[in-house]
């Protein structure tokens, strides 16, 4: 057995209100690919950031080659021989490849360029050292990042979801390079939630869930089903009283919709779905598989490239936001401060940010009157309606959003991660509000990362993967069902 390169023991990391890592043990041997698997928010990236010196652990220790180290900064980590390719690349776009790699070293770009050619050939990471970074594709940029680490002589290479941005061919090339690296004794930590990739490349797999290690399995011990189960876990379902849904007329019909993300990638790849009045469709999926784009396409914030959106029998494809507000589509976005609210405006003004009526005169007294009513009805804790909304707590901000969206008298509510960052009481309030709306005959599209939320609220569950609904299931928290959802989320066809 080869020697241990890196070992972390009992790592605990707390963020305000969240226990991100709870006594995590993890080790990496020479020449192996150790995969970290887990849902969003399981703590994978936090753990890696601690190893890479971006965060400090509150408790626990890190041993590198058997010696205890305190990693102060990424620079320090790289000096030790620990390198990380982050999801967001850290390259200077206007510099050439060689200049980027020469940054922080004492070599001249020309000497660096020669060495880069050596490394490229050795590992099969093809890149032109004199090309400007902004001209490179995402895959090439990733290669530059890896070369940068190899150039610095990293013994531990951390790859944080490297395949998320790659084409299958690029993924294959990356895996080849990874195998070359391991054959030279470099340890690679691989983060992913695509199970087929995990199966292909990993020597070992450690599954994290909610900041805890669920288990570490050697190659041969794991299969896709087992990993999916471990990743998703057995969710405790909150007891929310609700009646069985009585689906009514068809409210929204999305048909073969294609759309691109902000970065120009294809985010929705022929998605289709239908929601009826009085039902909640929960969409499960790993973040970044088109959830946000789906919500934006329906609310009119994003253009549809092809396909059709029908709302109550009318074609709403590519109409304006205000048209859809008037038609009765409410939207509770994930990003409260960034999208749903205007932080410096008052609570009262935020309650009327989205509105149906078209008036000229802005009557402050009238608006404040209405605002007081909503504040009372939704129990929003605020010093006054004139308080800037940024001074409110997350739960109260969400209440402001919900109060406003519900006041639009909607026929369809799109809720994206509606309880993220909220305490239990607020969470329950959100749940009850949504169910109450459903019972009134509102169609609800729930896009949530947390499975328990989907199980708690949904009448039907769909799983989204790479911009498509890959399958539907029932919201039953049985182990088989959870395993099935887990596999679908990880892109394994069932």
């Amino acid at each position: 057995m080869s020697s241990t390169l890196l070992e972390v023991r009992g790592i605990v990391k707390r963020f305000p209100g969240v226990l991100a890592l709870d006594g995590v043990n993890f080790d990496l041997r020479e020449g192996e690919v150790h995969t970290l698997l887990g849902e969003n928010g399981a703590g994978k990236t936090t753990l890696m950031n601690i190893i890479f010196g971006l965060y400090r652990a509150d408790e626990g220790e890190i041993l590198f080659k058997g010696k205890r180290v305190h990693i102060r900064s990424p620079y320090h980590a790289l000096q030790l021989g620990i390198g990380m390719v982050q999801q967001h690349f850290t390259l200077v776009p206007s510099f050439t490849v060689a200049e980027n790699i020469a940054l922080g070293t004492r070599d001249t770009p020309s000497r660096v360029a020669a060495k880069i050619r050596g490394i490229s050939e050795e590992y099969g990471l093809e890149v032109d050292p004199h090309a400007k970074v902004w001209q490179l594709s995402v895959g090439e940029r990733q290669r530059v990042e890896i070369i940068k680490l190899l150039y610095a002589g990293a013994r531990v290479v951390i790859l944080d979801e490297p395949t998320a941005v790659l084409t299958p061919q690029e993924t294959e090339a990356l895996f080849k390079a990874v195998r070359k690296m391991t054959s030279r004794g470099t340890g690679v930590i691989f983060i992913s939630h695509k199970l087929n990739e995990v199966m292909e490349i990993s020597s070992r797999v450690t599954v994290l869930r909610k900041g805890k290690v669920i288990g570490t399995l050697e190659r041969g011990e794991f299969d896709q089903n087992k990993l999916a189960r471990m990743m998703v876990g057995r969710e405790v379902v909150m007891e929310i009283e609700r009646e069985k849904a009585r689906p009514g007329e068809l409210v929204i019909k999305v048909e073969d919709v294609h759309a691109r993300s902000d970065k120009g990638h294809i985010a929705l790849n022929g998605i289709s779905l239908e929601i009826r009045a009085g039902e909640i469709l929960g969409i499960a999926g790993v973040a970044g598989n088109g959830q946000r784009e789906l919500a934006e396409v329906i609310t009119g914030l994003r253009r549809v490239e092809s396909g059709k959106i029908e709302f109550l029998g009318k074609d709403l494809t590519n109409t304006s936001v205000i048209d859809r507000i008037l038609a009765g589509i409410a939207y509770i976005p994930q990003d409260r401060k960034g999208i749903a609210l205007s932080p410096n405006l008052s609570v009262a003004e935020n309650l009327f940010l989205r509105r149906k009526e078209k008036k000229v005169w802005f009557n402050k007294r009238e608006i404040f009157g209405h605002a007081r009513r909503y504040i009372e009805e939704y129990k929003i804790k605020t010093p006054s309606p004139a308080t800037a909304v940024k001074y409110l707590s997350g739960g109260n901000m969400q209440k402001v959003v919900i109060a406003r969206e519900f006041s639009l008298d909607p026929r369809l509510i799109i809720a994206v991660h509606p309880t993220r960052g909220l305490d239990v009481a607020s969470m329950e309030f959100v749940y009850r509000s949504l169910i109450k709306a459903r019972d009134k005959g509102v169609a609800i599209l729930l896009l949530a990362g947390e499975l328990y939320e989907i199980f708690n609220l949904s009448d039907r569950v769909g799983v989204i993967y790479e911009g498509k609904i890959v399958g539907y299931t029932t919201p039953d928290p049985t182990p088989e069902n959870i395993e099935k959802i887990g596999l679908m989320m990880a892109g394994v066809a069932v």
Partner: protein
Amino acid sequence: MEKRLDIPKWAGAVVPIISVVIALLIMGIVIYFYMYSKPSYLKRAVFGAFNEYRSIIYRIPEKSWDRFEKMLKAGRLKSAIAIPKGKLSSNVSSFAISRLEEVFRSTEESYKFVRDTSETVKSFPKEFKELQELYENIGYIIKAYSALNRTINNAKSIMNNECNDCDLKEGMDSFVENLSKVGALGDLISDAKSIDLSDVEGTLKGLEKIKLEFPKEVKKIFLEKMAKSVKTISHRCPISRSSWEDLLTDYKKNVDDAISSGFNPFLFEKASVILDNISVYYCFAPVVRIWNNSLEPLYDLHKKVSTVEQVYSQLSSASRSLQGVLKSLEKGRTFFVKDTVYSTARYVKNSYKRLELDAFTASVFSKRIKSLKSLYQELEDLYKGLGTPSEMKKNVERISSEVKQLSGKIEKEKNALSEDFLKTAEGYSKDAIDSFAKVQNELFQRGSIEADLSKYLGLLMDTYTYKLEEALRSGIGRLKLSMAYSQLKDVSKDLTMFLRNIADYCPSLSDKMKLSLDYETYVFDMEALRIHTSQQIVFDSDKTKMEMEEAFLKEKKITKEKYMEVLGKTLDGHLQRVGAILNDLESELRDLTKKFGQVSKVSWIAVGKAFKQLSTWPFIPSQGLPDTINYMTPLLFTGLGLILVFQMKLWNIGAEGQFYLGVMTALWLSLFVFDKHPSVAEVPVILFVGGLAGAAWAAIAGALKAFLNIDEIVSTLMLNYIAFHWMEYLVYGPWKAPTNFPETNEIPRQFFLPTFGTSRVHIGVIIAMSLTIIVYLLMRKTWWGFDLRAIGDNPNAARYSGIDIAKNVVLAMAVSGFFAGLGGATQILGFEHKLYHGYAPGYGYTGIIIAWLARLDPWATILVSFLFGGFLVGGDQIQLVLKLPKAVVVAIEGVILFSLIASEVLFKYRIRVVRK
């Protein structure tokens, strides 16, 4: 352990206050140094001049010492060892010092002027304020009278000097008496009334008479003198009478022509060529030279006559001013309305200034006349006796009478005897004339030196003093001062030349300048004088000459000891006088240095005055308040437009260009569209269309931002340049008025915005104020304003809320541009009335500051633009009162603004003292 001291939030307000205080402090220091540097520059100039003098004077003793050394080495002079240095007072030094004294006096006067003007106005109780102003006005009037008095005195002295037969004396005296009455009693109105204006008119008439009489008289004197000298020549000249008589007739004719043709310099030139011919052929070069020299004052005279004309016209205009003053005073007494008193005061102040200037011109004029007169006197003296120094007089007289007798003889015999006899007589006279010529040569050399010197020095010193005084008067402009300084340098150079001439050429002949040696002690006879003048050659050179000298002395029976004694005394005198000059100069300069000590104090007073002007002048209705309001109006327009877009974080830097569009449109409509039948009804149309032009201009940048995401900061800024150069093109090109300046015609009177009463304040400020209400309503009372705020705060949320960002960006930019354009149109109709090249008031840029300081609040915008307007007016006022250059004022304004804006950022934070 951390210890925290939290300072309450309101304490943040201290930050801008402190920063403004610091800025004002910096401003004080800037002004202080500026004011201080002005006199210190003068100080440097004076010291520079002193050094020049010193070097000149040191040059002489060095030379003399060398001579002494040589003499000592030659064993010739024993007494020379014991020469005391620097005891006797010298008249050369007193001459130099008297010139310097003039400089000092002017300097001192300028200090007094600065000090007086920097005296702060005493704060009277409210009820005495009016009284105080009245006193001030009376003071002005008294000053005006005394200035006039001075002018008239000058005129009087001119008359007394040059026109003895003028019988204006009585009228003048009574007038002056009346004037002094005004000054003494202070009871302004009644006494002013008693002044008989006919006296003034009498004075003017007298002056006119001088103007007519003066050149004629000068001409008469000149011709007489010339005739005399021609006569003299005729006795002496060895050539045939007819030939030189022809030449002289020619010459005379030319001079006559020159004078009758109004002092034509070319004819003078011609005359002088003829004279030159005479001098070349014949022996009277010195005489000729004097004639030539005497012609130059005639040129000057010509100039001076025109100066008299000027003085006359200035005096007459001063008298008209005085009449106006008196009328105003009477009016003031009759109605005693406050406004009338103010306008009277202003009027009197202006006329006072003019009078002061007149007085100054007159004094320069009289100085010139005096110097001219003395020159004539000298000339006359020279001809009368050919010898000003008494000791020389005898000799000259003797020779003169000899010559006269000889000439008389020749004349008699010429008539009686035949031509052969005449020839003999002429031959006889030649010897006499030769010997005369030798003496005369010496004397004329002297005369010419004197004439040259007094001309040069007098002229240069006059010019210098004039330049310096002018420089001091005009607030000691650097350029003028340096001119004066270079003048002083020139004087120094000339003095050097002069001293050199005297020392090298003929020290004995500089009696007039009192640098020369005492003739009595060494001049034994004519030959000794000759030896003395050639002593330089003797000292410098070989034995043969020394031997020759000795031989000469022997021949003339002058003992060597006696000769040496004379020489020793001569040099002794030189050195003593030089030493005295230096002593006197040094003590003068020491006094001067003491005087400069007061500069610091005066400078501090100036700083205080600057503060006072900045804080009070712009806000007092009778002073700068109208200007403040007129400054405020365009700032309010642009500021209001900008708060609208700034609150949606749309950085419109182009209010300047939008303002220009309004300006151009208003002009175009006024000058080229509605110019046929201009009527008041079209004013609102002009204003509105001007606003629309600004709106369109801003909408360009808005559309670029909304649809192509082009940075509005860059595009608006670029549009500013386009608008500016467009405007410049129109001013220089198609719209240029038929004047010499690149400017447009004035718009028709009908389009002028009405003003408040008689003040300069136009109703634009009312339009701007009412727009504030509109902006307030738009921003706070409409859903549109709400939408704009939402866009500004979080564009994502706005988009999510269905707000059309692109449309609103264009619209808001257009409204913002409308305000700026309206401001531009208002400025044209209300204030400028026409456009001229380089019109770039920067209201658009200042509007940015206004909007920012007002924290995007419409009501605060009114306050801020008012204060800012006051700030600009105060800056102008400092410039005027302290004679600061504009750059200094702009720098001070910059410092204050910078502090304010910088502190705005700090204002957002809480000050917290943390101790670990």
